[in-house]
């Protein structure tokens, strides 16, 4: 073990102090990325416990496992924690933070102290929201629909709303930081169309964060104000309009789905090309489709409201735009698949996560075509069909990408390898567990089981039992990586600078990188993903 340690580089970013101060006052994007990693892993664990409660309750149709109040607080806690405190920051705040400066050959982000500030804001927002959830709880659903949240809810709505409002600023600042960094700090020769697709995806994500988050922040603040001071923004008895809330909320919260999925798509693009050892197919199309998703994604929000009473014609406009936003995602999927063609495909853990991602995201995306369809949405919306659909996107897509990325860059982040066979087993568990959890929910939804039901008619029980069984497997699937990745920190074999033979500037520096990333500013002379440079390999071999 000692000898293993000795083969890690003598100087790297983790060696600059291990005391609390060296972490809490750091401006190193890599350390901040790790601090986010720990924070969001904790939030993920809390969100998963809530999910466990939900699935436990739904084992029986009569709701006898929990009270209705407790169940409502459990699914609300699950949604709030997972969406606002895990999924939205997940890839950008951890991998994005860590990798963007490395990928563009920079020393750090453009505003290192703002980067640290955004972590503190996140922590304050998360702490306040957790305090609200644990003292009295929240039972509005993560969507905070009015007038329920402003007039009828009997829980800590205002405190939780303020917590989410605060956390929003963390997201805005991260987005701003990325945009400026990508514009101003690229290494010489790193033109826009030489950028890794991971960076393109984060650029598109950042635009959504900066433009969208203020809207939801204000909206949710209005909810808190209406609740505390009885303004009439949304309460119809005070002249407000509850539907206005839905417009404002979804104006952000639909694009927020792309905040969750776009970075994941960026990860997939990086992994698929590396593990096929081949230039990505249709680079420009993948890069531009990220921007297209960010742009069109702002125009589809009202497809969440087809049954709330809008006119037929406005519904048609939003349905058409919804179909349009599906196209860039389809383009990406086709290009990833085409990248495999005549490649040299290596079945390592990150790549297995890519296969899982493509398989599951495909189901999530294609079921979106059911829900974007006016005639079908009437029957399917607010049922388990929609629950299954967005979990296929957010868990099957976003989290698969996150796990794939975490495994892919783990050797870079820590300098050590995890045990590959464990990685494979856990990806299999996650895949099987996930499908068993959520596929039955499509059927449940089509049969008509509404979401957010504490008790349900008996004929839905078998499918619910299957779903809970799947969730149990999924839970183990998630505990696995947590344990073997932690294990690798202590016992993992040193990985070397570039264990996968990957392209990209982050692989040209040592693992773990030094605090200032590169000893000298790299100069880029190659196209992106310039694989198959045979002469180099022969020289090495």
């Amino acid at each position, binding site marked *: 073990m000692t000898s293993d340690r000795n083969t890690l580089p003598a100087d790297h970013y983790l060696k600059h102090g291990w005391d609390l101060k060296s972490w809490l006052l750091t401006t190193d994007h890599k350390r901040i990325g790790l601090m986010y990693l720990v924070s969001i892993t904790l939030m993920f664990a809390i969100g998963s416990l809530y999910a466990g409660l939900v699935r436990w309750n739904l084992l029986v149709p009569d709701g006898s496992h929990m009270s209705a109040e407790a169940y409502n607080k459990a699914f609300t806690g699950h949604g709030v924690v997972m969406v606002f405190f895990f999924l939205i920051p997940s890839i950008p705040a951890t991998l994005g933070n860590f990798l963007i400066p490395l990928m563009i050959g920079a020393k750090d982000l453009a505003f290192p102290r703002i980067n640290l500030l955004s972590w503190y804001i996140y922590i304050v927002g998360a702490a306040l929201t957790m305090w609200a959830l644990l003292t009295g709880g929240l039972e509005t659903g993560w969507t905070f629909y009015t007038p329920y949240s402003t007039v009828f809810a009997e829980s800590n709505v205002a405190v939780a709303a303020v917590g989410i409002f605060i956390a929003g600023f963390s997201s805005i600042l991260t987005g701003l930081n990325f945009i400026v960094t990508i514009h101003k700090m690229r290494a010489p020769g790193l033109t826009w169309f030489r950028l890794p697709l991971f960076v393109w995806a984060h650029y598109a994500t950042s635009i959504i964060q900066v433009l969208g988050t203020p809207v939801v922040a204000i909206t949710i603040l209005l909810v808190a104000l209406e609740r505390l001071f009885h303004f009439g923004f949304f309460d119809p008895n005070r002249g407000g309009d509850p539907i206005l809330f839905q417009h404002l909320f979804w104006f952000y919260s639909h694009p927020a789905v792309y905040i969750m999925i776009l970075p994941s798509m960026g990860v997939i693009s990086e992994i698929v090309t590396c593990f096929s050892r081949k230039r990505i197919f249709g*680079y420009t199309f993948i890069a531009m489709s990220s921007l297209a998703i960010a742009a069109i994604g702002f125009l589809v929000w009202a497809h969440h409201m087809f049954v709330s009473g809008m006119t037929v014609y406005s519904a048609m406009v939003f*349905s058409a735009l919804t179909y349009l936003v599906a*196209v860039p995602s389809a383009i990406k999927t086709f290009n990833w698949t085409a990248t495999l063609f005549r490649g040299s*495909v290596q079945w390592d853990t990150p790549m297995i996560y890519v296969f899982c991602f493509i398989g599951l995201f495909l189901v999530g995306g294609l079921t979106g075509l059911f829900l974007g*369809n006016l005639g*079908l949405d009437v029957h399917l919306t607010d049922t388990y069909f929609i629950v299954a659909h967005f979990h296929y996107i957010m868990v099957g897509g976003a989290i698969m990408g996150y796990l794939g990325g975490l495994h892919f860059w783990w050797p870079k982040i820590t300098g050590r390898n995890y045990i590959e066979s464990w990685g494979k087993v856990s990806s299999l568990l996650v895949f099987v567990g996930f499908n068993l959890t959520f596929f039955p929910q499509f059927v449940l939804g089509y049969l008509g089981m509404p979401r957010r039901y504490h008790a349900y008619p008996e*004929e839905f029980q*078998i499918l619910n039992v299957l779903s809970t069984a799947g969730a149990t497997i999924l839970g183990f699937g998630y505990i696995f990586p947590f344990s073997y990745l932690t294990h690798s920190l202590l016992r993992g074999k040193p990985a070397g600078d570039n264990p996968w033979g990957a392209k990209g500037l982050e692989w040209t520096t040592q693992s773990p990188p030094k605090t200032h990333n590169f000893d000298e500013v790299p100069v880029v002379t190659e196209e992106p993903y310039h694989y198959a440079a045979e002469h180099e390999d022969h020289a090495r071999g």
Partner: protein
Amino acid sequence: MSPAFPLAPERASSVAPEVDALFLFILGVTGIVALGIWVVMLYFAIRYRRRSEDERPPVIHGSLALELTWTIIPLLLMGVMFVWGSKVFFHLSRPPDDAMTVSVVGKRWMWKLQHPTGQREVNELHVPVGRAVKLVITSEDTIHSFFVPAFRIKKDAVPGRYNLAWFQATKTGAYHLFCAEYCGTEHSKMIGRVVVMEPEEYQVWLAGGPAPESPVLQGEKLFTDLNCITCHRMDDAGRGPLLKGIFGRTVKLASGEEIVADAAYVRESILTPAAKVVAGYQPVMPAFQGQVNEEQVLALIAYIESLRTPTPSTPAPPAAARTQARGASTR
């Protein structure tokens, strides 16, 4: 009621087969696409798996022809889905003219329904098979959603708004009625059933129980009880606008705007009259917000709507009803 492990919901309304055909079409198209991509992906992943560390695949940058192909074909397929879906949605959104109107008021945590003949029900709706039923849906508190899976219909009950839905049941039986919009603690208990009966049975069912008043009569009674009649006289000499024939017409407001006097406007004018005053009148009417519940508002609207058609004479309803109304008011 249904098998232990069903894979499709019961199909009991005229629109349900249309929705299901659309569902199967999209399921078929997306199923083929998904299967195709999975198979191709796995085939490539296995066929081109790395066999030696020295492998150097060819450089392929992409193909504009392929990009266009897999952009345009999905667009065309989705175009078909969009048009078909919109067609079904139009059908779902347009109740036939001869539909019987049932008013639906959601209230935490129950559904209150009233038939055109005046019968009231809670969490149960009896309807005749083969007859189009129009639902006028609102809520007394927070947002609910009226959902009958077997009919493939769902519509939010939004406080302060009247949303429309309709169905025509095609099969007798009892079907789930759910609240589909989360509304608090007992959300999952806000359920009931729709009982579809043969028309004769429905008549028998209607005849059972005490003879109710129709919403129009109830509205007229309220109109007197609440002293609306003092200002909204049946000649145009009252302090308030003449209501006869006003429903559905365009009226000019004091602000200069014009508005159609529909159910939503009448409701607003009862609850918060000062919001949109008709030109030529003073904003002197007291607000009835909190004085009348949603069902009473619906009855008043039904009454005002009944004044639209050229009434035989003033006062419109039969004397017996008025006597009954006065009797009730003295109670």
